[in-house]
């Protein structure tokens, strides 16, 4: 068995057994939901339904109800799209990249981070669809045989690459998430007593039996899916950045965009995971599995990606001057000193300064501080997209068409509505699905569980040859 240093903080605190892991994760599902769950669900549902109402109004009236004008043809819709896709990058990154690197701490957060990914990508996908105005012709983005002289979609266009990237990302993430969920649904199926939940979990678990060969396949499929999902994560946000980088708008036409967007996506995604996990661990009493060490690991990722983002901002600024292109230079001077200076400086404060505070160990181990920073980072990342998109196009080559963007209440309603819907989905997930990977956690109990790793090998059975025992 793999041995871990005794100095390394255990990943599972307390004296847990395999049975404890099962009951700790299943208990919140089997118990009645706390009153707080209903309150939060109610609030999220109301906000979400308001958003749905705004979307129907938008579809019925036309996208003129957004605060767009002829200069600023893209604003909150694409900002929100990129923001949500970015948030959606943490889940697959956590489960795929950290699986490839054999990081065991991922197991505390991967399940809920993947759920978050899927719900965030739902929300993201909604914006390109509704911004068509005529949602019912959304299938025109697919290369289907047709009667317009057999006119195909344009495979040269990054917008079409986006269609393929986002749909691949969403569906592969769902598959990855679900394959991991099946053994845990089987655990629930074999535990719950009431007939209806039993039937539901029985269907959801696909008849999983946990045979040795099943687990052999399970491990390989997880590994190969992780191998496929890792480049996928990077490609998706690179392609999202191509929407801008391949255009000729000053402020958008930069080669630094793909890595910069990917780092930003991981940055905001981990921040959202922190926001959700810090509440969830408390509400569902999972402090033994998601503890300060996990929060610290995530904060280190936030610090590193935040530094990459900060370096990208400054590089971008420098290159705009160094390029000698006056339009490029103006786009950036206008960003930090023009009418959108407040958005630029909010972005700089939230994304460049706040993650640097994580260098201080007491701060990155403080749960309250982490919670605040995680929200600050997501506000900052929203501003980043807003700054890149709106501040680059609101003053174009022709000063007579310079304009400002003022969001309408429908802009606001749709955006806030997606946050509501996101929480509706996430709360349902936390209520009915196992929020921790039960089966995977059991595999690390003996190497990283507190009672096992620091015990002087008393748990070994007398008939075992002590060949892996370092006490000798």
């Amino acid at each position: 068995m793999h041995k871990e240093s005794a100095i390394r903080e255990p990943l599972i605190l307390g004296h847990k057994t395999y049975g404890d892991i099962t009951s700790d994760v299943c208990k919140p599902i089997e118990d009645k939901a706390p009153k707080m769950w209903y309150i939060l669900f109610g609030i999220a549902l109301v906000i979400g339904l308001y958003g749905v109402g705004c979307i129907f109004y938008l579809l019925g009236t036309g996208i003129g109800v957004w605060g767009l004008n002829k200069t600023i043809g893209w604003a909150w819709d694409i900002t929100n799209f990129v923001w949500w896709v970015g948030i959606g990058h943490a889940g697959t990154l956590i489960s795929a990249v950290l699986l490839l690197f054999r990081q065991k701490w991922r197991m505390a957060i991967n399940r809920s981070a993947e759920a978050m990914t899927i719900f965030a990508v739902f929300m993201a996908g909604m914006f390109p669809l509704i911004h068509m105005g005529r949602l019912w012709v959304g299938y025109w983005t697919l290369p289907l045989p047709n009667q317009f002289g057999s006119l195909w979609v344009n495979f040269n266009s990054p917008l079409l690459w986006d269609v393929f990237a986002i749909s691949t990302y969403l569906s592969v993430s769902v598959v990855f998430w679900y394959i991991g969920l099946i053994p845990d649904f089987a655990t629930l199926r074999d535990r719950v007593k009431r007939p209806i939940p039993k039937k539901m979990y029985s269907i959801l678990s696909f008849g999983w039996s946990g045979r040795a060969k099943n687990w052999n396949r399970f491990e390989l499929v997880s590994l190969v899916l992780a191998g496929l999902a890792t480049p996928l994560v990077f490609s998706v946000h690179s392609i999202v950045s191509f929407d801008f980088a391949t255009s000729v708008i000053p402020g958008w036409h930069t080669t630094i965009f793909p890595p910069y967007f990917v780092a930003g996506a991981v940055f905001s995604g981990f921040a959202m995971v922190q926001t959700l996990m810090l509440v969830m661990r408390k509400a569902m009493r999972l402090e033994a599995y998601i503890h300060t060490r996990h929060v610290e690991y995530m904060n280190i990722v936030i610090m590193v990606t935040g530094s990459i983002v900060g370096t990208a901002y400054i590089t971008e600024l420098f290159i705009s001057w160094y390029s000698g292109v006056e339009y490029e230079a103006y786009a950036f001077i206008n960003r930090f000193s023009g009418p959108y200076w407040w958005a630029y400086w909010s972005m700089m404060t939230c994304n460049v300064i706040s993650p640097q505070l994580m260098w201080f160990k007491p701060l990155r181990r403080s749960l309250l501080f982490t919670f605040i920073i995680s929200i600050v980072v997501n506000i900052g990342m929203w501003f980043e997209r807003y700054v890149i998109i709106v501040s680059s196009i609101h003053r174009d080559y022709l000063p007579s068409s310079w304009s400002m963007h003022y969001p309408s209440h429908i802009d606001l309603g749709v955006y806030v509505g997606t946050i509501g819907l996101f929480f509706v989905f996430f709360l349902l997930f936390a209520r009915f699905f196992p929020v921790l990977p039960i089966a995977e956690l059991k595999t690390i109990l003996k190497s990283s569980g507190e009672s096992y790793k620091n015990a002087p090998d008393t748990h070994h059975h007398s008939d075992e040859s002590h060949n892996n025992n370092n006490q000798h």
Partner: protein
Amino acid sequence: MADKVIYAMYDDDDVLKDGAKKLVSKGVKVSEVFSPFPIHGIDPIIGVKNTRLGIMAFMYAITGTLLATIGMRYFMIVDWPMNVGGKPNNSYLQNILAFIPITFEFTVLCAAHGMALTYFLRNKTLPGLPAQNPDPRTTDDKFVMELRLSENSSFTEEELTALLQTTGYVELDQKVLN
């Protein structure tokens, strides 16, 4: 033919693994192991071959690459060559850069979904199928070893039970399969 099965239940994965090692060295065939999580190292002991799903994933991936290439070549070069600024798309190779992202995405799409479907079919896990684990506790914290008498014809039932006795099981169960 009716077949008798012995289920030995353990409460620790390492005990089961050592037990299986002991039984196999005596010439017993361990037919199956049911566990709540993958027991690393059990496969070579009980003779479970490594899965070939990885090869399948590669084949699905290649299929995806080919389909994407053939499709985009037809749409963009053959059927409706797009003419941008008087520079028509005449050859796929010279325009290939624009087609890389979708080729990659489609490769991943086919590989992931093809492999997932194969995985479900090979495992016989599909919505609505009944569970086959002998005891509901094997998805919680118990580990079950299955010995089929038909696969251990050189041993009597008593001999097998006696051998199991030395492996430290917590419960023993029998079942007649038809």
